[in-house]
């Protein structure tokens, strides 16, 4: 009898393990849809003369981010949660020694960075995080279209995707992260470490990059530079929303595995309890709220779909604990404010081609702070937490949001400044006027017709 019970338990464990492995594995192609969306979105938002060049930039950002995240990005996540000292945290799943043991693609730790029949978790977790990393690069990419050099941008994408965001994730999206343990930071869906970091990284780059030729007049007023294909842009935005379901699915820690927080309950990455059902309510309410909010002022499908993104980002920090009606209110407000915020930024002379700084940066900060206002007192960590662990608070969310802004902005600004000083940042004006495709792409987006009216090419 005991043998039979043991066999049933073993069989159940195999099923659970393969379910968990398949669950995270399937989030990866879902998240790839985010990149399908960004590709379509960016190429549609680009003028005909720059379409293929924008696509190439986007594809290379994805590829180099993935590769470098394997080489060293994953290591940062496990090494630095407690700060740059690299010491071990309370949960003993962090620190330089721990990262050296599991997250380097050489030496003994290589066994967890490749095929291993005893490890059903590392590959799928790494894959999901690698897609998060690539998402940050794609977010910044849209803001910089039509005047940033390809290799210069790839270097920026590597810094953002394999360094900046993962440092922010280690600090605020890890049970040993110092923002979590000391400030009670809660950011379930990564409004901070993905969206705010990427948005403010893009701002730092934009300040060095400058606007597209023809964007601003001598008196400082701005011209609208329309992309060549609104349908591609809007459908791309909708695909990003589809991909977000995978992104948010991957933010849950499933039960019943050696690496799970609990044997019988799903949790956030912080070990606080949650269900997929919560996401079923809240994601679609956020999408709807954002679209409706953006429609109030703009009546423009581009901004309405951007409102959908903003809607999700505005509540991403608390998707696990928000009530759906609250989600609608917050996401609707986010949709309402994106266009005025984007106009304000443009008034400062910043040419953010797709509103990425506003939608991801500003709204990311808005979302983190709003959660602090309404969720104060909620535990930031699961039942395993030390007694003196901080709880969610308004001050904690504000401080953490400030850290996220700086972790994005500072490296973005400094690396862009460095690239600018060596002539690797901005495409020369003559090439911008002619069109990037004719200058550096051996193909045409529309070989049978369609040229930008301002290009001789």
């Amino acid at each position, binding site marked *: 009898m005991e043998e039979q019970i043991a066999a049933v338990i073993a069989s159940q464990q195999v099923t659970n393990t393969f379910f968990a492995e398949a669950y995270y594995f399937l989030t990866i192609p879902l998240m790839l849809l985010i990149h399908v969306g960004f590709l379509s979105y960016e190429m549609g938002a680009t003028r005909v003369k720059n379409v293929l060049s924008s696509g190439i930039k986007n594809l290379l950002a994805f590829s*180099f981010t993935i*590769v*470098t995240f394997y*080489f060293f990005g994953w290591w940062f996540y496990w090494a630095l949660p407690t700060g740059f000292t690299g010491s071990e945290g309370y949960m003993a799943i962090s620190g330089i020694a721990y990262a050296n043991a599991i997250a380097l*693609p*050489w*030496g003994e730790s*290589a*066994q*967890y*960075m*490749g*095929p*291993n*029949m*005893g*490890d059903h978790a590392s590959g799928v977790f790494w894959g999901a995080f690698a897609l998060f990393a690539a998402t940050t690069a794609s977010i910044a990419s849209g803001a910089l279209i039509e005047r940033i*050099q*390809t*290799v*210069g941008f*790839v*270097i920026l994408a590597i810094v953002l995707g394999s360094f900046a965001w993962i440092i922010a994730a280690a600090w605020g999206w890890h049970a040993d992260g110092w923002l979590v343990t000391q400030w009670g930071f809660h950011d379930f869906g990564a409004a901070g470490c993905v969206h705010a970091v990427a948005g403010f990284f893009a701002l730092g780059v934009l300040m060095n990059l400058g606007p597209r030729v023809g964007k601003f007049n001598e008196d400082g007023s701005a011209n609208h530079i329309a992309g060549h294909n609104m349908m591609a842009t809007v459908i791309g935005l909708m695909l990003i929303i589809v991909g977000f379901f995978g992104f948010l699915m991957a933010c849950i820690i499933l039960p019943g595995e050696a690496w799970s927080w609990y044997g019988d309950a799903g949790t956030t990455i912080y070990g606080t309890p949650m269900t997929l059902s919560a996401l079923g309510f809240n994601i679609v309410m956020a999408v709807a709220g954002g679209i409706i909010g953006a429609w109030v002022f703009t009546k423009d499908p581009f901004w309405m779909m951007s409102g959908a993104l903003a809607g999700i980002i505005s509540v991403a920090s608390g998707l696990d604990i928000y009530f759906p009606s609250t989600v609608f209110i917050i996401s609707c407000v986010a949709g309402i404010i994106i266009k005025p915020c984007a106009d304000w930024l443009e008034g400062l002379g910043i040419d953010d081609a797709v509103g990425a700084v506003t939608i991801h940066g500003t709204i990311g900060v808005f979302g983190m702070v709003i959660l602090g206002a309404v969720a104060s007192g909620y535990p930031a960590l699961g039942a395993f937490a030390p007694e003196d662990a901080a709880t969610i608070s308004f001050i904690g969310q504000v401080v953490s949001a400030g850290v996220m802004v700086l972790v994005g902005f500072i490296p973005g600004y400094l690396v862009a400044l460095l690239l600018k000083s060596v*002539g*690797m940042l901005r*495409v*020369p004006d*003559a*090439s911008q006027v*002619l069109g990037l495709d004719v*200058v*550096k792409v051996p193909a045409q987006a529309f070989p049978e017709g369609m040229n930008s009216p301002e290009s001789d090419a």
Partner: protein
Amino acid sequence: MGFPLSSWDESFADIGMFIGADGGAGWWTVIAVVMTIVILVVGNISEQEKYNKHQ
């Protein structure tokens, strides 16, 4: 190179079963990193030539 385990049965322990698991994995990574850097450097040289040609 070569099969790093005594048999496939050994692979069901918590152990790498990939080509290079017996110590060569790091060299594959070194080569991959060098390739990445060289490709970026060559790509940048080519890109700058194109901009110069259209100045």
